[in-house]
């Protein structure tokens, strides 16, 4: 069995196809930015998560530091429990504040971490105590209209 020109064409075809797949993964998709390096888990309880979804980004000072891995309802306190996996390179003080924020007016929601001043750092599995729920636009508008009606009396 010897090599033929046919093999060359098919080889080029396969290489081009796999190359296109790599382009899709790296240039179009997020495989190059999605770092599956070592992470540790943190938890936080929110009374309302708004439109937060698993895989939403976690940012501190605008830098991506992790992703939301799990969201469920804790039936003991009837609050949303959000599990986050944070890059091991980033440590946060114990009094870190977790806010659910929105990128832009109608953009997707993410968790913003604002570090406090504590000298002890959060360890894996620990709970972030200070949280602020998502701002629900409908509530905000409702409050605004209510205040407006009060004021005009």
């Amino acid at each position: 069995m010897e090599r033929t020109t046919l093999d060359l064409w098919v080889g080029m075809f396969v290489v081009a196809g796999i190359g296109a797949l790599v382009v899709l993964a790296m240039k179009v998709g997020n495989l190059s930015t999605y770092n599956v390096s070592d992470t540790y888990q943190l938890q936080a309880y929110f009374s309302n998560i708004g439109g937060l979804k698993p895989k939403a980004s976690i940012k501190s000072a605008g830098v991506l530091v992790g992703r939301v891995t799990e969201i469920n309802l804790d039936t003991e306190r009837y609050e949303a429990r959000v599990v986050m996996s944070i890059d091991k390179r980033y440590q946060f003080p114990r009094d870190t504040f977790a806010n659910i924020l929105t990128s832009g007016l109608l953009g997707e929601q993410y968790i913003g971490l604002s570090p406090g001043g504590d000298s002890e750092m959060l360890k894996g599995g620990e709970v972030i105590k200070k949280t602020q729920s998502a701002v629900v636009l409908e509530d905000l508008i409702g409050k605004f209209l209510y205040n407006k009606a009060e004021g005009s009396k």
Partner: protein
Amino acid sequence: MAIVSSLRGIGSRVVNGVWRIGYATRFFLMTLLYSGASFRRFHLTVKEMFSSGVMSLIIILVAGMFVGMVLGLQGYETLKRYGSESALGTLVALSLVRELGPVLAALLFASRAGSAMTAEIGLMKATEQISAMEMMAVNPIARVIAPRFWGGVISLPLLTAMFSSLGVFGGYVVGVVLIGVDEGSFWSQMQAAVDFQHDVLNGVIKSFVFGVAVTVIALFEGYDAPPTAEGVSGATTRTVVQSSLAILILDFILTAFMFRGD
């Protein structure tokens, strides 16, 4: 009497259809069972990859490029109204990777390579080459059908990946180079929105399923074609019609599984 005969006609069509589905299923399972030879003698499969994959390259690449360019143009026109031209990259990439790439590449593949497969096998049957093989104790499924099946199934995902990436390039050419959308936000918003597992990998799975469907339909129609000139031409037409419908229906089912509202 007219009612009875029309009822009889409907009944025989239904029975015939079910019969063909059963035969096609057995044909598919036999193809899988006798696939060993197409990997042991891989040059057979390589030859079929050449005729179905490499020969479809030009139509796939040109179509991908133009589909991406049209998406760039139309997407820009619509997004401009909401002042979010920077989301153009997201729109082009997501619609190509998730839907248009797999579906359009499979439709083109069905009409370019599927019809050729049906005609080839139908003619082999009409000229009694298949019976001759059986006479010589060569299993035609292992020698003729299985290499074509695997050639098509391997080729289509590769063609789809090329279609999608060239489409993204086409969108880039129109959006960034010609219209002047900001290049940085074009790529960064695209990369933020397209997930490798959720979007790219699901597109590959889709194109694999379409590849199986198109090649099985094409090969079965050829194998089952009446051995006449008319029979072969009818089988070729049926291949294109049925595989196009199968692609679109399967696409809906797969999309419902993969992207249900999260």
